[in-house]
């Protein structure tokens, strides 16, 4: 049994490697887009079925964001990115629960050994995906910060004149802040990747050790972990956004 940190390449288009997680991301995106298109066409003032569920989630998120921002206008600004991150991350986390994980694939020969290249792999168990969302989250925070309080004041958070109070401490703290922005990208991406990758490994190992019943509790555990990680990602993004648009008060 081979488990790879990197997503497995299924085939190449030209020199572009198509990995199983990329495939999963595309399928997931297609499903989300189709669902949103059908939602838009069936949108009614008196909600029914799927619209009800979606509206419930939307309202819950609006309230959650409201409780952080304390400001309806900011909530409207933050809502799309936070909601999309949550939806995308939770669904890509849950891919690992789809039956066929680690079992359906192509047998390929690598260095004289036969290796199963599985089709199904959680998009979140691919650092490219988690890093991409982390980059979007952190850069959105920078843009919103600049848009909200102006480029000069926003830069003032990181670059502090050492000749003014509180002198070098301020400068040092500013540099720390700058480093923490970079650290956010790493912590975002590796937290999600680590959790989901570990969950996937756990599920595959359990499935191979005892195929019946024993993996069930782990499936429920992964259902929960997937939800929590998505919520954590979305909430941290929200908090960083709020911090970015809040000016330092000296």
């Amino acid at each position, binding site marked *: *049994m081979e488990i*790879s940190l990197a997503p497995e390449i299924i085939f190449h288009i030209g020199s*572009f490697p198509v990995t199983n997680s990329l495939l999963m991301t595309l399928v997931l995106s297609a499903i989300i887009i189709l669902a949103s298109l059908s939602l838009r066409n069936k949108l009614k003032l008196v909600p029914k079925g799927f619209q009800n569920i*979606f509206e419930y989630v939307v309202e819950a998120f609006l309230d959650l964001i409201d409780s952080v921002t304390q400001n309806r206008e900011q909530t409207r600004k933050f809502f799309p990115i936070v909601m999309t991150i949550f939806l995308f991350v939770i669904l890509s986390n849950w891919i690992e629960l789809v039956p066929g994980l680690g079992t359906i694939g192509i047998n390929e020969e690598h260095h004289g050994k036969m290796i199963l290249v599985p089709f199904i792999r959680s998009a979140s168990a691919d650092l490219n995906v988690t890093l991409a969302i982390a980059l979007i989250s952190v850069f959105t925070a920078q843009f919103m910060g600049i848009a909200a309080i102006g480029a000069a004041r926003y830069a003032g958070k990181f670059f502090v004149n050492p000749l003014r109070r509180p002198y070098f401490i301020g400068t040092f703290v500013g540099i720390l802040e700058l480093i923490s922005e970079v650290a956010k990208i790493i912590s975002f991406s590796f937290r999600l990747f680590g959790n989901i990758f570990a969950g996937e490994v756990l599920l595959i190992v359990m499935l191979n050790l005892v195929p019946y019943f024993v993996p069930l509790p782990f499936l429920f555990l992964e259902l929960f972990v997937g939800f929590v990680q998505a919520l954590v990602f979305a909430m941290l993004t929200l908090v960083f956004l709020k911090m970015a648009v809040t000016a330092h008060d000296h």
Partner: protein
Amino acid sequence: MESSEQRINFLFAGPRPLDVVKINYKKMELLHNLGIDGRLLLAQLINFIILLAVLYKFAYGPVLKMLEERTKKIEKGLKDAEESQKKLAEISEKEAAVLVEARKNAQQIIKKSEESAVKNAEDIVALAKEQSDRLLEQAQRQIEQEKAKIMAEVKAEIAGLVVAATGKIIGEKLDAEKDRELINRSIR
């Protein structure tokens, strides 16, 4: 080379652990070992941005608008209901007032008509009495006149009769002048 660097043999790490976890401190090598590929990263970035845009345009926008619209509608409905309730109370109050007024008016009208009826009755009785009095008087006067006339006629007749009787009794007729004088004296 590519796959042996990329893969970590998890459970059966056995034969060449050093090969697998050989951490190359060159940066590109580290990223490669973690499976980070610039082209894939870019693809994922673009994918997420497209997803965000589509959701924003087709899901969030319309749904948020719908939610707002519904909130407004419900608020309006509640306000309308409250208003109509107030109006209803007002109307029923007005109705009660109107009823009281109408009852009062009706009573007044009844009272007035009763009064006028009584007065009319008195008038009619008075008129009737007057008329009957007048009729009675007229009748009496007529009777009186009749009586006088009859008296006169009777007197004339009686005088004739007396003359005739007297002439028969006396056997001879006095001359006319003496005769009348005599009669008149005897009658009186």
